């Protein structure tokens, strides 16, 4: 050792780490490490050496570790901080005083095959630019939706000309999933909605002594509007989300890419059976929901408002016309198509991570309900104009 000039000692307790610094020659500094440098205790950050290392005339750095008892990543992290700082300030480092294992691992960390090609990421943008980016993304969504709509339409065309390829069993599986398996929830919800309608109507109609018209209200309300709407919303939450999650996971696993490379249309194979299944089953469920709702209306009228059983029945028959059923079925079919379209759209455009699958499922439900509401308004206006 040449000319020991000053010596500083940092030290924790007896079992702990020790760090000493010694000037060595004119431009050299020796760092002496001793004791235990393990993560089970509080270790110093390399920054305790910042003032010494930052001195302008420092050119060489040495280490001594003959009193080092034990070490792990804690020491490595400390030394790697020191080395990085030295590299930035042109300080020559001589690691020969460190244990061989430490030298090797430090060496591996600095000669990895892919150092620093990631040139850092852009920093967090401000609020306005984030709002702007989100708006642009949102607007870009529309052409995407239209594009997908076009693909689905072409696929429908191929189906009509008998050129679409999908497995019939997939279609029937979806039919089972959407139909029979959704019966319980549809029953419960439409029963309760029918009950609410009956109470709501009875309360108002009692004022003019026209309670018998509860039957008209419930029957036309359920068959024309509410049956289809409630079924559509249930299916959006239940099946639309499931479609998005299934297709999204297939996207993550590159299954959809595999279809593409084989020249099989993923739209034909995956989207078409789902849309067809929903277009078939949602009208049927709508019909079922309407009957359940009318039953609830009947029970409420009979037990609570003293309307005779047959009275209610004939009033219902008198109120209902075939056109109401047609309107209900048409709405059911359109809502089913909307839910399937939204679910498949979000699933097919899903990103490649678990988080993206979650986003796709959420977005499928939101888009599905939004589309249902838009279509409901449009169709109500159109049917009114047509006088149906």
């Amino acid at each position, binding site marked *: 050792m040449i000319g020991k000039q000053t010596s500083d000692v940092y030290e924790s307790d007896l079992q702990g780490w020790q760090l000493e610094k010694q000037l060595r020659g004119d431009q050299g500094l020796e760092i002496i490490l001793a004791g235990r440098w393990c*993560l089970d205790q*509080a*270790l110093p*950050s*390399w*920054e305790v050496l910042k003032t010494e290392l930052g001195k302008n005339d420092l050119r060489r750095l040495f280490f001594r570790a003959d009193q080092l008892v034990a070490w*792990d*990543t*804690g020491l*490595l*992290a*400390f030394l*790697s*901080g020191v080395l990085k700082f030295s590299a930035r300030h042109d300080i020559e480092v001589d690691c020969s005083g460190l*244990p*061989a*294992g*430490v030298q*090797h*691992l430090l060496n*591996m*960390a*600095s000669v*990895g*095959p*892919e*150092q*620093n*090609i*990631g*040139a*850092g*990421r852009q920093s967090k943008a401000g609020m306005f630019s984030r709002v702007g980016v989100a708006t642009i993304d949102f607007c870009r969504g529309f052409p995407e939706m239209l594009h997908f709509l076009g693909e689905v339409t072409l696929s429908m065309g191929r189906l009509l000309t008998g050129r679409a390829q999908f497995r019939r069993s997939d279609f029937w599986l979806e039919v089972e999933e959407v139909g029979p398996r959704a019966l319980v929830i549809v029953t419960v919800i439409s029963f309760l909605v029918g009950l609410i309608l009956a109470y709501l109507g009875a309360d108002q109609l009692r004022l003019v002594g026209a309670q018998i018209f509860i039957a008209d209200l419930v029957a036309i309300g359920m068959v024309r509007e509410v049956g289809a709407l409630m079924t559509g919303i249930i299916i959006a939450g239940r099946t639309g989300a499931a479609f998005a999650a299934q297709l999204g996971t297939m996207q993550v696993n590159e299954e959809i890419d595999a279809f593409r490379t084989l020249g099989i249309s993923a739209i034909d194979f995956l989207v078409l059976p789902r849309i067809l299944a929903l277009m078939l089953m949602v009208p049927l469920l709508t019909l079922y929901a309407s009957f359940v709702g009318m039953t609830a209306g009947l029970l409420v009228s009979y037990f609570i408002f003293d309307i005779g059983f047959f009275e209610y029945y004939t009033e219902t028959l008198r109120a209902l016309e075939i056109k109401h059923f047609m309107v209900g079925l048409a709405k059911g079919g359109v809502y089913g198509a909307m839910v399937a379209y939204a679910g498949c759209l979000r699933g097919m455009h899903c*990103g*490649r*991570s*678990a*988080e*993206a699958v979650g986003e796709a499922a959420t977005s499928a439900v939101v888009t599905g309900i939004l589309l249902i509401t838009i279509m409901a308004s449009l169709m109500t206006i159109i049917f009114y104009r047509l006088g149906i």
Partner: protein
Amino acid sequence: MPGTPHIEVCNLTMAYGDFIVQHDLNFVVQKGDIFIIMGGNGCGKTTLMRALVGLQKPAAGTVSYEGEDFWNVSANDQERLKRRFGVMFQGGALWSSLTLAENVALPLHEYTSLPQELVDEIVSFKLALVGLAGFEDFYPAELSGGMRKRAGLARAMALDPDILVVDEPSSGLDPLNARHLDDLILELRDGLGTTIVVVTHELASILSIGSNSIYLDAETHTMIATGNPQQAAQTGDAKVRHFLSRGEL
């Protein structure tokens, strides 16, 4: 350090329902070993690994860590034992909603009370060790498969585990990266004294880093050889020599 049993496996049988994947496995992994679990596709390598790291209860037999039988101690002790091993899964199994740095830092935040600066330093050091310096703020979805795998190794090493279990470390990596990973495994063993269990069928890795091994046979559903892989390649069971010479012997 070598010469002390670290993991002892006794009469281990693994099954899915009635289907027995492997039965009557007996082997000892010494401290500081690089222990290779090898065998053809579908022989149960990964199932054995899952039994070793506490993910899947074996149908029979014991797995002991320094004398503590993992499947017969309390849930608390199991948690304590689990903290001593790091596992690298085949595809990396990174948490996709976290950046690489957050992935590696999570175990450190959960199990240590180190200051943030030190955690950051450890994280970037571990990422540099696997050749991913500068990728701290990337999300797993933005990386290639090989990079995800290496980041998975960095996360497995985060807590300086006594036992590092790696599943197929070099499959899907280019030869240089595979070699770098093999070197890293050797350095971890030499530097930190980590016991390393490697599940693999990459011949180059098996022969260059393995200090001990077992060969699982898919036909008889049990192990048919154990010992240093290089010796096994010369003088071992005919099936093992066949495997280790790519079918030429």
